[in-house]
């Protein structure tokens, strides 16, 4: 969680300093979901969403390649061509999102069918409304595919809350199609226990209610966040401060290493 938080804050800084040729989709506040899921899913193929820096970092992807992607460099994880929405690291393997909201859900589903390998699909609560998302859940249930769908539900499509968009819940639809489902807060311990249970009965769908601190794109804020799970755990974890300081320094060094070359 610390790695994601501090990487994203540096990315925000780079964006504000106009060092990124494109925009950024930052996961500040949403760290807990991928940080926890990744602990339980080593070896899974990962398909992520446009807000995918967190998944790449959590699953052990190369932070330097992600940094360089944001800076538009050839050494970026997509050669600088994809930008913030296209985080990938084939060594995981984690495949880039292409910017079409939620379409990676269908691609992940087809990958699981053909490869028979356990597969993860991360997406947001708006992406989950897409036709291809819903039909993918049904397809996975029909073919009993080894997929865990992880909805990082920040309740916002840009700034439009779920209650203004629909009167149904995605996890209930997934449940009706035959997927094992859960709808939980982004408490890491709760995520850990729930995912542990769901992984025994794939395909499964987990809706994790999370809190995006910054705007959909860019670095703006509309006020203080409703909650900050990382901050909450600073007082719960022994040696949290020392751990975070160590991570913070390494992320600082990672960014400075490249920015000093610019």
């Amino acid at each position, binding site marked *: 969680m610390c790695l994601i938080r501090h990487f994203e804050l540096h990315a925000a800084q780079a964006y504000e300093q106009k060092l990124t040729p494109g925009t950024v989709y930052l996961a500040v506040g949403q760290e807990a979901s991928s940080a926890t899921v990744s602990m339980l899913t080593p070896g899974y193929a990962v*398909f992520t969403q446009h807000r995918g820096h967190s998944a790449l970092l959590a699953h052990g992807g190369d932070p330097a390649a992600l940094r360089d992607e944001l800076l538009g460099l050839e050494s970026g994880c*997509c050669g600088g061509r994809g930008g913030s929405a296209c985080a990938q690291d084939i060594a995981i393997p984690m*495949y*880039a999102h*292409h910017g079409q909201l939620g379409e990676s859900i*269908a*691609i992940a589903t087809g990958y699981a*069918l053909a*490869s028979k390998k356990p597969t993860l699909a991360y997406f947001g609560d708006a992406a989950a409304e897409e036709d291809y998302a819903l*039909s993918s859940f049904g397809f996975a249930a029909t073919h009993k595919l080894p997929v865990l769908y992880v909805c990082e539900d920040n309740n916002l499509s840009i700034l439009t809350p779920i209650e203004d968009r629909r009167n149904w819940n995605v996890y209930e639809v997934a449940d009706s199609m035959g997927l094992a489902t859960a709808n939980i807060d982004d408490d890491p311990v709760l995520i850990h226990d729930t995912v542990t249970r769901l992984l025994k009965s794939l395909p499964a769908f987990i809706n994790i209610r999370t809190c995006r601190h910054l705007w959909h794109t860019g670095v703006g804020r509309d006020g203080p966040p409703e909650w900050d799970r990382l901050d909450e755990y600073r007082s719960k974890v022994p040696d949290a401060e020392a751990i975070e300081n160590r991570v913070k320094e390494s992320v600082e060094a990672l960014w400075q290493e490249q920015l000093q070359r610019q």
Partner: protein
Amino acid sequence: MARTVAETIKEITRRHLEENGGLLFGQCIRAVGWVNNSVPDCKNIVEFPASDVGNMGIACGAAVAGVRPIIVIRFQDFMWLNSSALVNYAAKSKEIFGTTTPIFVRALAMANAGCTHSGVLHGVFMHMPGFRICSPMSPCEYEEIWDDFMSHDVPMFVSEHRGSFLHTEEYVNTCQPADVTLVGISAARFNLAEAVEILAEEGITCNVAHCYWLKPFKTDHVLKALANTRMGLVVDAGFEICGAAQSLAYNLMWQTGKPVKALGLEDRSSGVSPASRNSTPSAERIAETVRQAFLEKAENQDCVGISDARMSGAGT
């Protein structure tokens, strides 16, 4: 007995599914004649639900996994719903992400089947980067494009036409000194021979160049034929405006400096009744377009060498 196009597709597909571990996706594959008897009854066929918007993404995911899937779209008009993952992911993945999504899209066309079942949309996909696009109409052409797919790592859009499925013959290009080169695409190729006969009776001689590689547009035989004539006409079974015929005609004009016209479907929707159809250009319509081209050329006083008799006969 010679193999038909449908039998060729079926055999290629059987080999891929049984020997290569390939997958074939589509809706209603096993129903009503196995897609005009072009799909084998074998393993690795996945019936899709009627979820057109999502299905292509699933097929693309299978391509990411490396199984080189075939997806059957029974009517090209259905590509409007099936296109997103193909255009936005499969076709871009190599250039943007450095990964590959080789998927073989069998998009079937059909003539005179109403406003949402008669479309020929290869021109739409030619507009987008990242595809190889072809329209094979004979058994050998189909074998060639399949081998090409297997030796490249990008998606291939195959604009098939049900009218070709029972064909066994191969098409012959001609490259003699003549008046005009007729360049045919898709089902328009079926009408070229008759158009050549009609025009010959009027004293207008034609070369014929069959095109099944649309992107990349393989031009060698077309350029040779065009070099021996004064003008060209590209005829397609798709819409004329901003379509394959206009695009290729423009390309040929710039390469040769010779006038090349384009002919395709008219700019209107196609109905079911005979009067409301918007059909593949017939032999007579092709011939009439050639006559008009000669008239326009004569009016521009550029048509030196075309006999007065031909001029006076044109347009009658």
